[in-house]
């Protein structure tokens, strides 16, 4: 790894001051599970200054504010999985975190790093988009809020400026009784970087019809977004295997229309459809 200067930020103020001073020469370091791999690549762009934020305790909280869930960016994937708040208010975010890397990666890798790295295969992003999450960016000029759905221009490219620090992730808890699930297809079980995944939320009212449906495919398109056309098919109907299969076909149809046909399309088309159907079914599975 090429040499760099190393700054430990003790607080958000210190971190944003360092980012302000060093601008594009600086890089924020959290768990390092993306950065250390990146910096070892031959010819990698190693920053001149590394700003280590891993000791800022205030960025580590998981809490509820009314019905809003607030997450500090330093929350690790392991902490998301263990969190009672996440398990009860957004269970599929914990499921998504549990598919990441390995125990070692989950103990070290953070939510903020996953969001800011913005790989097409970032597993926490599809559930967060389905949850309508917003992120707070802080800099010496103050704070601003962005919807995660508008946060990425393309994979690995966010609207954040180099002098901005991600300081909070916030989303409304799922209403009571609402079901959620996450499914991921990888090459192997552990350490599989997801190539295709689906996050889904479904709510059914007392008459037995679907009143809320959110489907976000991951790692299949250039930017994450809800599959609105498929969601519309679900709303107002009672859940059924046939309905879920139809939604799956619509999602894969839309994705292929948008990304164009490629060598992988023939594989992806039925797989996405099946993954969507399975994820919707999982929402209603007893043990999920």
């Amino acid at each position: 790894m090429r040499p760099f200067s190393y700054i430990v930020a003790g607080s958000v103020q210190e971190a944003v001051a360092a980012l302000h001073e060093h601008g594009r020469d600086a890089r924020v370091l959290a768990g390092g599970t993306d950065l250390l791999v990146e910096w070892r690549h031959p010819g990698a762009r190693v920053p001149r200054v590394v700003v280590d934020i891993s000791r800022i305790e205030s960025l580590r909280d998981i809490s509820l504010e009314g019905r809003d869930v607030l997450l500090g960016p330093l929350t690790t994937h392991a902490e998301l999985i263990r969190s009672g708040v996440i398990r009860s208010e957004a269970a599929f975010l914990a499921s998504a975190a549990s598919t990441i890397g390995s125990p070692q990666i989950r103990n070290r890798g953070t939510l903020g790093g996953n969001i800011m790295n913005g790989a097409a295969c970032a597993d926490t992003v599809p559930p967060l988009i389905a949850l309508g999450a917003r992120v707070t960016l802080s800099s010496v000029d103050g704070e601003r809020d962005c919807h995660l759905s508008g946060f990425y221009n393309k994979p690995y490219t966010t609207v954040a400026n180099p002098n901005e620090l991600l300081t909070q992730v916030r989303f409304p808890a799922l209403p009571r009784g609402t079901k959620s699930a996450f499914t991921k297809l990888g090459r192997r079980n552990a350490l599989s970087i997801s190539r295709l995944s689906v996050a889904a939320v479904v709510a059914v009212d007392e008459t037995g019809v679907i009143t809320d449906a959110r489907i976000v495919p991951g790692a299949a398109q250039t930017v994450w977004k809800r599959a609105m056309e498929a969601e519309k098919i679900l709303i107002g109907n009672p859940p059924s295997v046939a309905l879920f299969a139809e939604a799956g076909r619509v999602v894969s149809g839309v994705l292929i229309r948008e990304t164009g046909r490629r060598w992988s399309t023939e594989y992806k088309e039925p797989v996405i459809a099946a993954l969507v159907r399975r994820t919707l079914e999982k929402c209603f599975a007893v043990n999920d």
Partner: protein
Amino acid sequence: MNPTITLSFTLNGRPQRVDVSPNRTLLDLLREEIGLTGTKRGCDVGECGACTVLLDGRAVNSCLVLAPQVAGREVVTVEGLAPLGTLAPLQEAFIHHGAVQCGFCTPGMLMSAKDLLDHSARPPEREIREAIAGNLCRCTGYQQIVEAIEDAARRTHEAR
């Protein structure tokens, strides 16, 4: 640029002070500066688990931790599992069950197993398999390793 920094942390229960360049990893520090070579370097990119150590009680890939990040924290390596000349129940169980063949994955496996057993007294087999999912072994086929961890859990539990 990149002057060395003096780092203080707890290593295997003892205070440690060492000078290190900030662009070195915890794995570099352990093996090359401190000379504890029990922790192995396999892939250097977080995929094989041979470099697993405990950081504040949790298993991490030491190849993905920047050395200065451990300042003030507690690191346990395979050398810290038992006093010199003795073996921890986990280590004995690995030998007893034939869970060590070439041995390259063993230190990392032991540290992942240690994290598991420190947080879960009698984990079911599924949890054991999950706990070592980030540790590759090219020799054993994993079954003996799983059995060794089950056995160590049982013995530790009975001894309590």
